[in-house]
């Protein structure tokens, strides 16, 4: 009987190990997919940012090209952003995924600053909407509000298209620049929405209220 007990324990352990190995393989696959998405977004973001720098030096004839690049980046991050977030949340065995999360937040922040700069320099009339939420909230109500707010903003983005730059930023990723934004706009509650760097909403804000502010 002891032998059967031992054999069963061994097989159970093997199955557990196999499960963990498959889990690690899936996590690594997902991590490389996140990295691939972010690398591609990285190039687009750098391209858009450098075009901004180029504009500063050589005039505004490249405004439309820069806008196109920015929109291209926003479209890409808009379509892939939620997927990246979900993948990051699902990974268990790869702590380095947190680093990718920070990188994603940095890219978003960089994109926002670039959009603001481009809007001023080239007198574009699109709206920038920064959506700040926390990854690790200990409040269920905050999580629910964030989910509702996310749905509202995605719906607005669908309707406004390129008239609205939607920039979701994770607020609790320990990045100096994100902390600076929170400090500057005095944000203490989440979710928070900043429209055109002027209007700050803490907590859930309705689609109607945002609609009145957006130019679409």
């Amino acid at each position, binding site marked *: 009987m002891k032998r*059967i007990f031992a054999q*069963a324990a061994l097989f159970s352990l093997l199955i557990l190990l*196999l*499960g963990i190995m498959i889990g690690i393989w*899936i996590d690594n696959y997902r991590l490389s997919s996140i990295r691939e998405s972010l690398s591609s977004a990285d190039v687009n973001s750098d391209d858009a940012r450098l075009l901004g720098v180029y504009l500063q030096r050589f005039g505004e004839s490249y405004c439309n090209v820069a806008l196109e690049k920015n929109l291209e980046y926003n479209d890409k991050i808009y379509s892939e952003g939620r997927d990246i977030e979900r993948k990051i949340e699902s990974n*268990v065995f790869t702590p380095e995924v947190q680093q990718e999360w920070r990188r994603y937040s940095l890219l978003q922040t960089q994109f926002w600053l670039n959009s603001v700069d481009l809007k001023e320099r080239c007198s574009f009339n699109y709206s920038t909407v920064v959506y700040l939420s926390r990854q690790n909230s200990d409040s269920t109500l905050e999580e629910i509000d964030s989910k*509702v707010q996310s*749905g509202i903003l995605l*719906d607005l983005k669908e309707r406004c298209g390129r008239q609205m730059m939607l920039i979701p930023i994770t607020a609790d990723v320990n990045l100096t620049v994100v902390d600076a934004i929170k400090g500057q706009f005095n944000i203490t509650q989440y979710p928070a929405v900043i429209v055109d760097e002027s209007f700050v909403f803490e907590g859930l804000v309705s689609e109607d209220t945002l609609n009145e502010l957006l130019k679409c």
Partner: protein
Amino acid sequence: MNILQVIYIGILITLSYFTIFHLILWFENRGNLKRGRIKDGDLPRVTVLVPAYNERENIASTLENLLAVDYPKSKLEIIVIDDGSKDNTFEIAQRFKSKHLKVIRKRNSGKASTLNYGIRLAKHDFVAVMDADSFLDKNALRQCMACFDDEKVAAVTSHILVKRTKGLWEKLQDIEYMIVAAMRKAEEYVNIIAVTPGPLGVYRKKDLVKVGGFDEKNLIEDVEIAWRLLKHGYKIRMAFDAMVYSIYPDNLKMWWRQRKRWVIGGLQTFFKYSHTMFDRKSHGVGNFIVPASLIGYILALLGTSIFSYIILSRLMNFLLYVIAALAVGANPLLGIDFSYNVDLLFVYGMMMFLISLAVLRLSFRVHGYRPNFFILLLFIAVYPLLSTLNLLISAYNFFRGERGWLTK
């Protein structure tokens, strides 16, 4: 990983352990499933006890079936004991009276007491006990006797299946009994068969008397006697080719009552033998059955608690989400995310599911059964939940002191 995920994995590890344990036993011994046929001259004399209570619908066909079994009549004594039925069970049974078949009437005292009464009347060295709504294959009794090939074998259980399989509940139980039969046979090889079910069990009379007969206070005397025999170092075998078909509940209400009785009786038995936990002198009871029962109860409690918590918290979150969305005039459908990313819990859960499918396939193959997809789906997705729910509610009733017989 959070605490719920750790518990979930713990439950899966334990379930996989017990499933693999049975699978190993099955595959190591699959060549010894059946025993050879004993010659008529070598067959021992047997007394068959048929306790009956309000069995007017089945008693006649049960006795007709019993009288037609392939066993020398000169070696067979049949005693039908009417346990104070309120219907005409006794009168129907009397029609079958003969030299080899006695019909006795006594005041109602419960099944275990009736069986003990019957044992005292039994003339032969072996006592077969069968329910009044069970039907034996022609060679069932003969094949049971073939298992008494060792002096330490005190009891032999048969291969029990569902007789009527027309209704949904009967079909679900049919699948369950096929799995139970295969797993029970596997348990024989390490002498941990924990029940000699009522439809047909054969006992060596002297061993049964030596351990004190059936426990009249227990609701499931067929489980209790098996534990007691094992505790005293006896062996219990299963005659895999002794097919017995019994009538099982054909609706949820009756099924629920039957299972409630089993759970309450199971807990009675568990507490009676809980002191034998890890006691080597108690043989299979202390080494396996009592610890495994405890683990089973804990898993059922933990699993149901986690499952209920997850379902309820998700439902609550969804309601709060809808309220929050409606409060700001948003469409609640906007933020719902139907996508799912595969994670470790899913992978491990699927692996456990595949192991369970292997057990199902093995059981079906042995019985030559081709399952209906819808019934199989219900069996996998709904039946275990109902069984666990019944376990928890019945356990609650047990701790509140309920001990009723819960049958007809």
